[in-house]
């Protein structure tokens, strides 16, 4: 199993450009998440999805949009990149919710906005 895959692995954007980060999971998980990881701040939830066609805002949603048209895919869009969005982005998925639900993470996308 590939688990959770993300593309691209690295990307450099100029201020104001847009891009889409792609995430695919092959575990038939219902729940998918997008996090950003910044030094000294752990992982912060951007958006999440509890199933195909549904999305919701997390802790830091501003400047990002998401779509979940197919169960296995969760896309994260940056409409107009800003330097504050320089970060490492992780996609994760889980079978369900509840206190014991393990989240499986992708390898991350390192984004630099200059």
């Amino acid at each position, binding site marked *: 199993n590939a688990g*959770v895959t993300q593309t691209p692995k690295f990307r450099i954007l100029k201020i104001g450009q847009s891009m889409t980060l792609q995430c695919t999971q092959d575990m038939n998980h219902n*729940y998918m998440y997008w*996090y950003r990881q910044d030094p*000294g*701040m*752990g*992982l*912060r*939830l951007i958006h*999440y999805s*509890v199933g195909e066609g549904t999305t919701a805002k*997390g*802790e830091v949603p501003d400047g990002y949009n998401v779509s979940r048209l197919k169960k296995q895919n969760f896309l994260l869009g940056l409409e107009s990149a800003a330097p504050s969005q320089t970060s490492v982005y*992780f996609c*994760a998925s*889980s079978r*369900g*919710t*509840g*206190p*014991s*639900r*393990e*989240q499986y*993470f*992708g*390898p*991350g996308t390192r984004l630099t906005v200059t």
Partner: protein
Amino acid sequence: TQLLEQSPQFLSIQEGENLTVYCNSSSVFSSLQWYRQEPGEGPVLLVTVVTGGEVKKLKRLTFQFGDARKDSSLHITAAQPGDTGLYLCAGTAPDSWGKLQFGAGTQVVVTP
């Protein structure tokens, strides 16, 4: 948002030494998870603790959930270079649907 504070932020030890990482909050969590993250990769789950006072052992790693479910610790016995990584704790709040709140992490470096 319920905050999770991890200490220390950085820990450098020699192979064979023991270490303890702490994860503290003023809030109660339904469960606490510990993840390890290596450079260039995503976090990988080590353990989930659910019951107050629970102790779980995973080979040389011992995890404890506080009685009040507000804190947790990770103890590594006889650390090895392969234990090097960023250790993250993550909690699930009782009133959330299962979203995880992550601590900032503890970077552990074990040198031969």
